């Protein structure tokens, strides 16, 4: 069980969080009329990285915020976390 540093609440046990998949996947708006390939990429294509992975977590049983985490998928080490919208 990981300890996840919530950028709002500080380090908390993984039980309080839910996983949100890869971070920084841009969602095309309907108005931009994305091509089928672009929309497909947004919907289904993910990186499956070995190493440092930017991923979304939600402190669902805490402050309820979504945020981002850089985690090493080979060691589970969390390098840092930051709020949604930040880099």
């Amino acid at each position, binding site marked *: *069980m*990981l*300890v996840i540093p919530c950028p709002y609440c500080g380090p908390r*046990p993984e039980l309080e969080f*839910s996983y*949100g998949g890869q971070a920084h996947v841009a*969602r*095309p*708006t*309907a*108005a931009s009329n*994305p091509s*089928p390939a672009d*929309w497909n990429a*947004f*919907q289904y294509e993910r990186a499956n990285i070995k190493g440092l992975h930017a991923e*979304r977590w*939600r402190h*669902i049983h805490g402050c*309820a*915020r*979504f945020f981002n985490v850089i985690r090493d998928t080979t*060691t*589970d080490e969390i390098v840092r976390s930051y709020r*949604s*919208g930040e880099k």
Partner: protein
Amino acid sequence: MSGHYRTASGGIDLERSRPIRFEFDGQAYQGLQGDTLASALLANGVHLVGRSFKYHRPRGIMAAGPEDPNALVTVRRDAARSTPNLSAAQVELYEGLVAHSQNRWPSLRFDVGRINDLLSRFIPSGFYYKTFMWPRTAWHSLYEPRIRAAAGLGVAATEADPDVYAQRYGHCEVLIVGAGPAGLAAALTAARRGARVLLCDEQALPGGSLRADTGTRIDGKAATDWLRETMLELAQAQNVTVLTRTTAFGYLPHNMVCLSERLTDHLASPPASKPRERLWQVRARQVIFATGAIERPLVFPGNDRPGILLAGAARSFLNRFGVLPGRRVVILTAHDEAYRTALELQAAGAQIVALADLRARASGPLIDAARGAGLAIRRNTTAVGTRGNLRVCAVGLAAVDADGAAAGDTDWVSCDTLLMSGGYTPSVHLHSQGRGKLRWEETAQVFVPAEAGQSCRSVGACKGLTGAALAAVFNQAATAARDATTECGFEALPVTIAVSDDTSAGGGWLGTLPQAARPRGGKAFVDWQNDVTAADLGLAVREGFRSIEHIKRYTTTGMATDQGKTSNLNALAIAARQLGRTIPEVGLTTFRMPYLPVGFGGLAGYARGELFAPLRKTPMYGWAAARGAVFEPVSMWQRARYFPERGEDMHQAVARECQVVRRSCGIFDATTLGKIEVAGPDAIEFMNRMYVNNWNSLAVGRCRYGILLRDDGFVFDDGVVARTAEDRLHVTTTTGGAPRVLGLMEDYLQTEWPQLKVWLTSTTEQWAVIAVQGPRARDVLEPLVEQADLSAASLPHMAMTRALVCGVPAMIFRVSFTGELGYEINVPADYGAEVWRAVWESGQAHGMCAYGTESMHVLRAEKGYIIVGQDTDGTMTPDDAGVGWAVGKSKSEFVGMVSLRKRALQDPNRKQLVGLLTADPRHVLEEGSQIAATPGQRPPMQLVGHVTSSYYSSVLRRSIALAVVNGGRSRMGETLYVPTPAGESAVTVTQPVFYDSKGERLNG
């Protein structure tokens, strides 16, 4: 008398004044308080305690700790409390203990399965892959069950476990695993600095090797006195928790260590309130492993007979329990420590018949002491075989020649006990579970911890200080503890422990002992528990296995419940030699948790029975239960399914309930529907972006049926949404969908549209919801309602108002999931039960009934109203589900909008919701049935859809079904065929509305 092999004095674990009666395989024995089952049996001269896994060979006690691969027993209190596969050395004796040997029939002394040993040349490793290949079908029905019955270990309890298993989350700065000398020195150091320290040890009493130490003096005291004083200091420290009988079995990411604490297994009559075990999940800033080392057995022919023990185990039995394993002892060793054992056994009255050392040269204070005591030491000597059936009676010793082979005549030395020592293997299991690296120590021939994978340190024997002087161990442990506490932000304080009369010891042996060119002594076991021999490992390599992971799996070495604690390094050495590679080149297999077996009870903890998961009940649950309602689980909720009267079964009750609702009215508990308050100036804009509907046109005080998709364009949830104020919407969701809908909404709000000024609050449990449905609903409610007009003109279908109901501030929604005139009364939940009762009483004059979820399903199906998750399956668009009309036509954005443009999602041949009427009106189709367009097909059939909902409608006096069918809406009137176990059922495709197709009753 507690056994003929008990010494007159000594045994620091014992209370000699407290004899204990116990039973093993039906025979009564006596032991002493403080004994383990192993020590008590040995005190009574019992060595034969089990039969081996595959060959059913007689086996005895080999080790004094849980690593013992042989002495597995079942301890039985009753049919519900019977624990198999316990190491006899870990079972603490209590008055009346009943234990049984395993894997034998009909008895331990005469076992039919022993024939496997004679047939062993036909059952080499991997035999089951080779032998039982034909016929294929016999594997499951014949071979596997037979093999499992013949092999296998103990038998689990046959009744449900009545005990309580506790769990706890622990937090500390420094967790120390192992309370031997290294762990104690670390604990003293860390504790004196004020950090929270948790010290655990798997034994009943702390001290580890200090408990068997008779010579060393620490701080001027005997080792056992120092141990007692140290434990007192730790017990008095507020910041220290000491857990004994506690095994650290897993080291997980981010410094979490799982501990299994055994609380009552050692008690004759455990208090009913006391949990049997406690599972700890400890989060430590720093971990110190002081897990010690495990003595290695020697691999030579016939090395598995009862009476053959590890030398260190014999020393433990003698010094901790006052037990002599035998009276005429042969010692075979490659390590100096066994000399200490020889000296102490001799002093305790045993005769050391021979002391054979595999090494050509051995020197040091222990060897000198042995020589001084007159022990005859045979150097450069190996064992080529043993004799004895149920107990060893002789050992064949032979000299080792210059080529490293046994040479010359075999000297058969008669004895009743053979003690062996191949040196010590550091217990690096937990270090390795935490992804720590290992380093091969060429001189000591062991793997020791190198770089740690997490914030942990290894100290003492597990770090490679096996047989080292105690002073070095203390120094290393104190330094590690100082560093660990400093890293936690605690000031350093020096701790020094003075040691005198200390001796170090060395040596070790890996792999097979020297043998003659054509050895004839029988099987040389490497893994006692899985009956893997040196020859098996050789066979695996000859058959082409190269990776140690493959060799392990093919031979099953190290794969028994002991996970190869005594065998892995010998197996690795033998494999490496066969492969012609070095040990570090071949490498170890992966260490995985658990370090020792952990019972399912402990892992389940409190999560059993009523506490397995929250059982959610509405405020009206008590009323429904008192009325005899039958409940069904819907997600975590308990919902009333139907209300049987006078012995009705479900079908009768549902038939009646449906008719009463359509004729008069019914009351229904809709509290479990999810409710989300969407509030803020951008509430409408947010809903426009989330739901497919156009919300701009929804006036305050009006409701609308909303549909929510995922971005893949498929229906995710649905529900009625009411605009309760200019900037506020009351959104309802399906019962099971409430958390995931809120989660999806929060995801888009927080990460896609954070600029929107709108907030979401779950109010599912704020409101109790009482649905009153049927033509008389208004008549029932009007007497209870103040400050609102329920007339059709002022509160039409899909309108809402605030009101007082029974004097309670309420929201009334005029909505219907039955197709009848209907209201859903929302009152604050604490009032739910009282208001329900008032509505119920008011309804009695109108013949109102209470109805449950089953009737709700039938009533809505008669109207063709879908249930998301039943009539949809995560691959259906709104159009597929027949609710395409709800999709806003002029919208610029909503979740799923882009996907709905895909050609595949607009294919007219997609599965579409339709009604089905069976030719036989009494035949109710099975939900999930497949549908064929042409009759009489044989598999593989061409299928065009499936049934999603199917009921008998008492109102329509016939069965009805909803289904999804390819291009269903263009098949109206077509006959389709539903294969059933009783033959094909012809069905006619219809509109999915079976009752009041014009919807007039809604407007009553």
